[in-house]
């Protein structure tokens, strides 16, 4: 075994110093800088942008690292959002609030569509516990079914992208078509309280912004752990040379299904936070266009970088809000141009630029800290490190 004082660089560590710094800077931006420079309205907007960051983080795992391009992440985002909205809508539809309806006690859009009873699959969404579980489990089940059907048949690449895009289109059509069950094209609106707590005032929105921030870090942490594990390295290997991975003894399909499900779960949490912060969910967030936007956030930020994905989501959305106010027609073109420019000129996005120009200097500055962290990690993992026990054994 190597000496503790000369740390082995191959000893796997959860964080390097520069990674840790990256997370600290992002935490400072989200929890300190943005809340102190933005008013409640703008902060809520940034909270909405950050809810897309969840999807972008999932895309880093699936697309950037695993090479699986999904153009249907909006479906999972939407499922999470709709699950949350169903709970909030039921809470808002008390018999007193809906006494003017022909059937009081059911959501207003159901009443408008001549439904006289709550559909059976809406009933469990009266429970918050069920809803919280469903927000993650429902999209994961769908992702599992899609992943299982595609990846065990070795459908990949462009074919997979097109199929996920078709699923996004189908999901929108279904939601719009089943107006009585889903609220149709308007979506589920007029959401008011969460377990009696009014989510509409500025104070609630600010609180939700912080909840969103904490959840984002939880998801970042999980994604980081996956990337740092052997499974993360396997995903890179699968992207590189899928065939070879099979002959190293792995069932490639299972790993692909896993990251696709993880990406779906992350997207769904983002969707639920979107609903809570924005106060509605609608099919415009589910279809092909939002799904492609989400890929653009990830590409701009850097598809190999979890932090890049978060900055990409913030930056592109902020730019969209700013520009689309002044040039609404041009924005779509600008978005397309941006995507092409990034893919052609900066395939690794903002994070790639950071790696090329800044990382070197930061790493040099942090080198002493990094060595210290490495030594601590080595002491923790090396069974022979504690000297007293070794002496006792002699």
């Amino acid at each position, binding site marked *: 075994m190597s000496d503790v004082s000369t740390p082995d660089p191959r000893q796997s560590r959860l964080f390097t110093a520069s990674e840790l710094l990256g997370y600290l800077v992002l935490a400072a931006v989200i929890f300190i800088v943005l809340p102190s420079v933005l008013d409640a309205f703008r902060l809520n907007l940034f909270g909405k942008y950050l809810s897309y960051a969840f999807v972008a983080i999932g895309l880093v795992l699936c697309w950037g690292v695993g090479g699986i391009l999904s153009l249907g992440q909006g479906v999972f985002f939407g499922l999470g959002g709709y699950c949350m909205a169903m709970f909030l809508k039921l809470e808002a539809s008390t018999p007193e609030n809906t006494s003017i309806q022909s059937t009081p006690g059911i959501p207003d859009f159901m009443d408008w569509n001549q439904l006289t009873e709550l559909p059976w699959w809406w009933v469990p969404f009266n429970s918050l516990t069920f809803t919280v579980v469903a927000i993650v489990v429902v999209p994961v089940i769908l992702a599992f079914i899609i992943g299982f059907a595609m990846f065990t048949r070795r459908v990949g690449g462009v074919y997979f992208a097109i199929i996920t895009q078709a699923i996004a289109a189908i999901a929108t059509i279904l939601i719009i078509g089943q107006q009585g069950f889903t609220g149709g094209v308007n979506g589920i609106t007029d959401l008011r309280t969460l377990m009696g707590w009014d989510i509409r005032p500025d104070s609630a929105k600010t609180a939700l912004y912080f909840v969103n921030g904490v959840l984002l870090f939880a998801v970042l942490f999980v994604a980081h752990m996956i990337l740092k594990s052997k499974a993360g390295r396997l995903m890179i290997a699968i992207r590189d040379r899928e065939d070879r991975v099979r*002959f190293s003894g792995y069932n490639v399909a299972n790993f692909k299904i896993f990251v696709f499900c993880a990406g779906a779960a992350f997207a769904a949490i983002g969707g639920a936070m979107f609903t809570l912060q924005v106060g509605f969910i609608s099919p415009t967030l589910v279809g092909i266009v939002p799904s492609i936007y989400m890929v653009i956030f990830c590409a701009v930020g850097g598809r190999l970088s979890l932090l890049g994905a978060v900055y990409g989501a913030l930056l592109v959305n902020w730019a969209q809000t700013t520009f689309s106010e002044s040039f609404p027609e041009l924005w779509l073109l600008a978005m397309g141009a941006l995507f092409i420019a990034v893919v052609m000129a900066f395939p690794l996005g903002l994070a790639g630029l950071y790696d090329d120009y800044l990382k070197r200097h930061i790493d040099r500055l942090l080198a002493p800290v990094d060595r210290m962290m490495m030594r601590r990690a080595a002491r923790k993992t090396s069974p022979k490190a504690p000297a007293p026990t070794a002496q006792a054994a002699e």
Partner: protein
Amino acid sequence: MVASTDYLLAVEGLTVSFDGFRAVDDLSFYVDKNEIRVIIGPNGAGKTTVLDLICGRTKATGGSVQFKNRELLKMREDQIVHAGVGRKFQTPSIYDDLTVFENLELSTPGSYTVFGALAFKRTGEVIARIEEIAEMIFLSDLLDQKAALLSHGQKQWLEIGMLLIQDPELLMLDEPVAGMSVAERKKTAELLNTITKGRSVLVVEHDMKFVEDIAHKVTVLHQGKILAEGSMDAVQADPKVIEVYLGH
């Protein structure tokens, strides 16, 4: 259908056709325990395809491949690996974006499942084993180098190392010295000599000097069929073999 045998590998009636073209045609051969078998033959004879069929990369149209009396044709690639068959590809097939160390790490047996891989810990034992293999394949100093930056010969060695760490009972090598310099070739021959001990090896190779050095028995393939089989000397003297292959 096929009786139980003492052979490590029993290939019988193996056939594959690509759109009616029979790349491998009713092929039968047997490999003993600890035997080093070399398959030679002209370009397009079907040598690579035979290895592809055994390791599950290509699905056979008919026949059977028994490895330790287990039918491989019904198994998935990863299951065949777990059964004890390792494969090196004709063009170096490694993970370019990962380091040499990581390439070897992913080839280390165990934690094959998703949750196993998530929970996998890089222990001192794993590191020591990887360092040992790296030493054998002459890559000790390059463990932290991205595999993409290796020379062609080093990539070949890395892939051999990736197989070695799997410790397969049957090792299949497709042109292991192709594209190597004379010096690299020599080192590779030495390397193969040490790693082939205690296991069966199926090698495809064009380099006759190399074949002479290592082969116990040679199978000559031509248009998907066996043209001749036997010791190197016997095969080299066979007029049919001289005509279609060695004569050129």
